[in-house]
């Protein structure tokens, strides 16, 4: 007989301590639910507000530039481009994030571990794929707008007079953005996706 079978014989006898935990009455259970709801909402809105604040900063900066230097058509057009590329992406990204956060909370029941993990992986992967595409378009565009605006406004002759400096600034801003994004992705997407993938691989290993 294996050690596991030996443990199984004594398992339920040795687990009496667990029965002592609780029981919950309606009031204490309600209190617990309220606290968890608050915690979950905080988690969802923490990401929401972080993204939203970042975009508000971009909008504030663009608005300031357009109001102050709006007489110059080039500056006005660049400011509007900045707005036009950021607004739809902000809206779609927050909408998708909300969908992912809410549905993942509802799927904890009924599904087997396999189905549940597969769903989680698929949802996270979909959002990550979308986020990657979004950043691949938005970051270079916004960085370009930012660099052109800064050089046009504060350097006599604008970008064309300081082409090398502008290109270096553009590359540096791209590198710093993508480095920050990669660090964030590793923590919130790449590593979790690997973990979920390893659970699914464990299923496959059985054939």
């Amino acid at each position: 007989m294996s050690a596991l079978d030996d443990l199984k014989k004594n398992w339920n006898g040795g687990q009496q301590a667990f029965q002592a935990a609780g029981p919950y009455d309606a009031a204490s259970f309600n209190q617990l639910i309220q606290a968890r709801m608050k915690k979950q909402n905080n988690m969802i809105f923490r990401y929401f507000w972080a993204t939203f604040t970042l975009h508000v900063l971009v909008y504030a900066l663009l608005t300031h530039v357009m109001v102050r230097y709006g007489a110059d058509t080039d500056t006005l057009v660049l400011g509007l481009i900045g707005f036009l590329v950021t607004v739809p992406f902000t809206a779609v990204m927050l909408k998708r994030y909300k969908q992912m956060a809410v549905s993942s909370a509802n799927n904890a029941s009924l599904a087997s571990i396999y189905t549940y993990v597969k769903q989680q992986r698929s949802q996270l992967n979909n959002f990550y794929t979308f986020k990657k595409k979004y950043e691949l378009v938005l970051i270079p565009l916004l960085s370009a707008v930012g660099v052109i605006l800064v050089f046009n406004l504060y350097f006599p002759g604008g970008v064309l007079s300081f082409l090398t400096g502008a290109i270096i600034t553009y590359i540096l801003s791209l590198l710093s953005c993508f480095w920050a994004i990669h660090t964030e992705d590793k923590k919130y997407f790449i590593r979790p996706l690997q973990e979920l993938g390893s659970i699914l691989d464990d299923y496959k290993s059985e054939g």
Partner: protein
Amino acid sequence: MSAALDETFLQQINQHLGIAHKVCGLYFTNAEEKQDVVQEMLYQLWRSYPGFDGRSKFSTWMYSVCLNTTLTYLRKNIKHKSQSLSQRHQQIPDKPAGDQEAQTQLLFEAIAALSQLNKAIVLLYLEDLSYAEIAQITGLSRSNVSVRLVRIKKELEAIMKKQSKLYSDVSPR
């Protein structure tokens, strides 16, 4: 689910509360973390209860929700995966007093080394669930559960042998 708490639900939860604690006991060591996970499990159970149609036993459904919640918690709280070495980690473990106790401790340490899925299977096996119920909860086929359990038992024996050797090497003669 409506804001009002379903009386039957609360009764069932209280009756099966041990399930949440057992799942936590197998996956987590930190007491604070255990408490947090149990609360998260209860919250997810409350949220999922309207979807429980009674086709399976309440306990089977509860195992599913608790295990799925645990996996989500482990994924979201990656801190315990890269724990820094504390003083406790650097100490050579004492060999437990009695033989039976020593064996049980070795077994628990061996179970902790298993993959997340295999840990779930071990727990459900210890809880005396049928192969059909284990298959339903994990999403494996019945035959796979049976094959996997044989392999898990062998894996546990191998880990325990290794640990036992480690203990005998470090214990004073």
